[in-house]
């Protein structure tokens, strides 16, 4: 009897998840009247705007991930090592981006760093991109911090640090050769979430007027019928590819298997 309920729940969940996907995929293939075709996909992929914005967003995502790693791994490590009492507060701060709308952040940025301010970052393309990256990093903070902190929990940070110190290692060596490699798998799951956030983000990119993928999807969705569906399927494909990659990385990281 219990079995039947479990299977029922599973079936319901799968239907709930897959039916819209199937419907969307089906629709995206119907651009040509009366038969299935990949016309919508061809249109999307051939659009120079798609290539341009997608390329831009991927680059932004990569920089955001790198910046996030450099910012968050040392911070989370330091908090665990030296100020464990502060952890609840730091955690609270990292959760703020979930509560504060992105539009508030971006308006704050524009107010602070406009062309007539003390640091006119919005005056140049590079400066604006930098601002956008900071914004993305803020949005990704809750996920990234949590992922890294979880990774740090699996190792004995204090003792490993002391062991490395007694062998003569300084902070850079400890972070790069001991801490980072041990939290890499956790960092990657955070990185994947960051990637997904950056690819889909609309508000910041639009208000800072950067040619990102989010505004492009929005534009396409507002003006076309079949292409947005194709685009969504493509986005899903990318997401799943990322997840597969993480699985692979986890599988191949030799030292983390089945320890304690």
């Amino acid at each position: 009897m219990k079995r039947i309920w479990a299977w029922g729940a599973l079936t319901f969940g799968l239907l709930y998840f897959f039916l819209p996907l199937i419907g969307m995929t089906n629709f995206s293939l119907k651009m040509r009247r009366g038969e299935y075709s990949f016309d919508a996909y061809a249109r999307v992929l051939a659009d120079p705007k798609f290539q341009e914005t997608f390329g831009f967003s991927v680059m932004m995502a990569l920089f955001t991930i790198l910046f996030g790693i450099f910012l968050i791994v040392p911070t989370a490590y330091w908090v665990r090592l030296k100020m464990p009492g502060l952890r609840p507060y730091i955690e609270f701060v990292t959760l703020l981006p979930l509560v504060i709308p992105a539009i508030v952040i971006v308006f704050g940025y524009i107010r602070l760093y406009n062309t007539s301010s003390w640091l006119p970052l919005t005056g140049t393309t590079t400066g604006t991109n930098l601002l956008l990256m900071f914004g993305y990093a803020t949005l990704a903070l809750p996920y990234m911090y949590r992922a890294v902190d979880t990774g740090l929990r699996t190792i004995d940070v204090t003792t490993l640090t002391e062991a490395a110190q007694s062998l003569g290692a300084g902070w850079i060596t400890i972070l790069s050769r001991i801490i980072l490699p041990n939290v890499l798998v956790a960092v990657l799951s955070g990185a994947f979430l960051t990637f997904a956030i950056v690819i889909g983000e609309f508000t910041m990119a639009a208000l800072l007027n950067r040619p990102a993928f989010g505004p492009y999807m929005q534009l396409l969705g507002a003006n076309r019928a079949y292409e947005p569906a194709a685009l969504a399927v493509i986005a899903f494909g990318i997401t799943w590819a990322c997840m597969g990659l993480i699985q692979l990385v986890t599988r191949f990281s030799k030292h983390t298997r089945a320890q304690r």
Partner: protein
Amino acid sequence: MAFLDIKNLEKVFGQNRVVKDFNLAIEKGEFISLLGPSGCGKTTVLRMVAGFETSSSGAILIDGKDVVSKRPNQRNIGMVFQAYALFPNLTVAQNVGFGLKVKGIAGSEADNRVAEMLKLIGLPDLGNRYPFQLSGGQQQRVALARALAPKPQVLLLDEPLSALDAKIRVSLREEIRMIQQQLGITTVFVTHDQEEALSISDRIVVMNGGRADQIGTPFDIYNRPSTRFVASFVGTLNLIEAKVIDPAANRISIGDQAITLKEPLGAAKVGDTISLALRPEAGSIVEGANGDTALVGQVMTSNFLGSVIRTRMKVGTAVISFDMFNSPGLTPPSVGETVTLRFTASDLLIIRE
């Protein structure tokens, strides 16, 4: 001059004085154990030597140089932890070679040193394994090799055997001692296990409440404990209350039986109560046993412990335990029996706090 010299070391955590006026001079190549119950400050002393904890006051000299102001990674000290603390992302060989790499030693020189270390710990073929593929005993050996590879001036071990099975604990402690003697490295070994400390140390520091109660060879510590604490912590010991009868003649009484001590009573007056210590193995009830002193008592319990039989007897209000070696021809004393315990007066120690 001592190679590792700890002078007037103090550590205060908030209101809590955890290490108090700790003094210890260790010769080059010596193996010293810090022995004491949990919480007595052993780890804190070790961590101050390693540099992980800053001392509140006092000096720590290694080879004549004060290291107090140096950071842990500048001290050239090898450390072995209870929890092994191997780097999980590195292979055994990379773990052992870590300190060399940090020092800028690379290539065949580093490879040779790593191979030499792995041979020293008896695991020459496990260089490519990861820590999680090793047993606890093997991991701790690797941790030892890792600490020794960069040729530290001093080796510190904080209860390195506590996480291991009893059997491995005994074999590994002997191995640690052998390697230590082979390399002639100055070593401080922290433990709460008296048997461990007695079996492998050149000298033992018995710690009590942040202080060094007594520093001496295992033989000294065991046979001539200088405080009540050392006497009760190291080995099993009878603490006997006695009354002074005649201080000038060293006469005291236990129960109603008067005996003469070897040790002078000093300033004690008639009627004073003093504490005496007697090891269970110091006396015998066998007919014709040696000894210039005898106490008569009633057997309370008699426990067969395998190689020895431990008997407790009552002398007045005092309870004294004594051991005898088991042998097939022996009849164990029965409860209620009156027996005569013979021992040498010099085995009866006066415990002055």
